[in-house]
């Protein structure tokens, strides 16, 4: 006698299992959405610097920073992690601004170099405030150390 193994049963398990685990995923997502206010530093977004942070994020995106850097570990792996750069630079937005502004337009011979983006001071402030906001997200102690 052979083991019964029918296509109908396999199909039912596929649909049932998929629906089941998608619902589970939605339930966990629902819980996560409830927890995020305690972790994602949204107070900063609602605060005085909120507009600057939002502008900084847009500048971050429109200059494709993620194409070289990682942010909270996601992105390209060509240039340093920036999720904690504010802390790495001694909790200083000015240091971040100075670094970005000082990149040579023609690069550094033989080495990787960040392009010169010719940002205005206001834009530099926005980016630095965005990076400060990111550094204050609760990331479960990642990265392991200040080097990112």
């Amino acid at each position, binding site marked *: *006698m*052979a*083991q*019964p*193994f*029918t296509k109908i*049963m*396999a199909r039912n*398990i596929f649909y*049932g*299992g998929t629906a*089941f685990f998608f*619902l*589970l995923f939605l*339930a966990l997502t629902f*819980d996560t959405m*409830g*927890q995020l206010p*305690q972790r994602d530093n949204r107070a900063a977004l609602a605060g005085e610097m909120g507009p600057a942070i939002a502008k900084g994020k847009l500048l971050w995106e429109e200059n494709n920073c993620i194409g070289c850097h990682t942010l909270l570990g996601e992105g390209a792996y060509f240039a340093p992690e920036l999720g904690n750069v504010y802390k790495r630079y001694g909790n200083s937005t000015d240091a971040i601004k100075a670094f970005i502004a000082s990149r040579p337009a023609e690069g550094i011979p033989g080495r990787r170099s960040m392009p010169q983006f010719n940002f205005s001071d206001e834009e530099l402030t926005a980016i630095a405030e965005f990076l400060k906001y990111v550094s204050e997200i609760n990331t479960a102690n990642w990265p392991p150390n200040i080097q990112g």
Partner: protein
Amino acid sequence: MKADRSVSEINYPPGDLAIWIFILAELTVFAIFFAAYAFTRLQHVELFNEYQLTLDREAALINTLALITSSYFVVRAVSAIKVDDRRRCVYWLLAALCMGMLFLLVKSWEYVHHYSEGINLSSNIFYMFYLSLTFFHFMHVIMGMVILVAIAVMAARGKYSRQEHTGVESGASYWHMVDLVWLILFPLVYVMR
């Protein structure tokens, strides 16, 4: 019960192979979760022992009895269909569903109680495990009940018989799996300390 196959020639479990692959996958997830619970407890023994006492053991006992009883009813339902007694098969399945419903009610009541105390997955590592394990199992009970409803309807429509009852056996196997998981979960999370 008429033995239509002698014991020695059966070398596959009752029900469809596909449901067994599914059962094994589910059991694996639970096994990893159980081991993770035990080893995480090792690092937080006092915390686990303290918060374990906040759980409602009476409710868990009722739930254990409910699931064992419903599993037993499902066994009777399979026996019934094997002698072509469709009516009784449906009755046993309905009885099993009632027990499942009891489980859901009691467990929901527990959840409401936790919720009113502001306990959630992020409260501490014990509640994280307790809620994850029981909620994941809770969803399995719902899933199992959906399956039982489906086979009860099919049985009532006369889709199963003495010769062809793989569907009943498949659903029964899944339901026993749900019971089996709880039989480990109950002592591990509620009693062992």
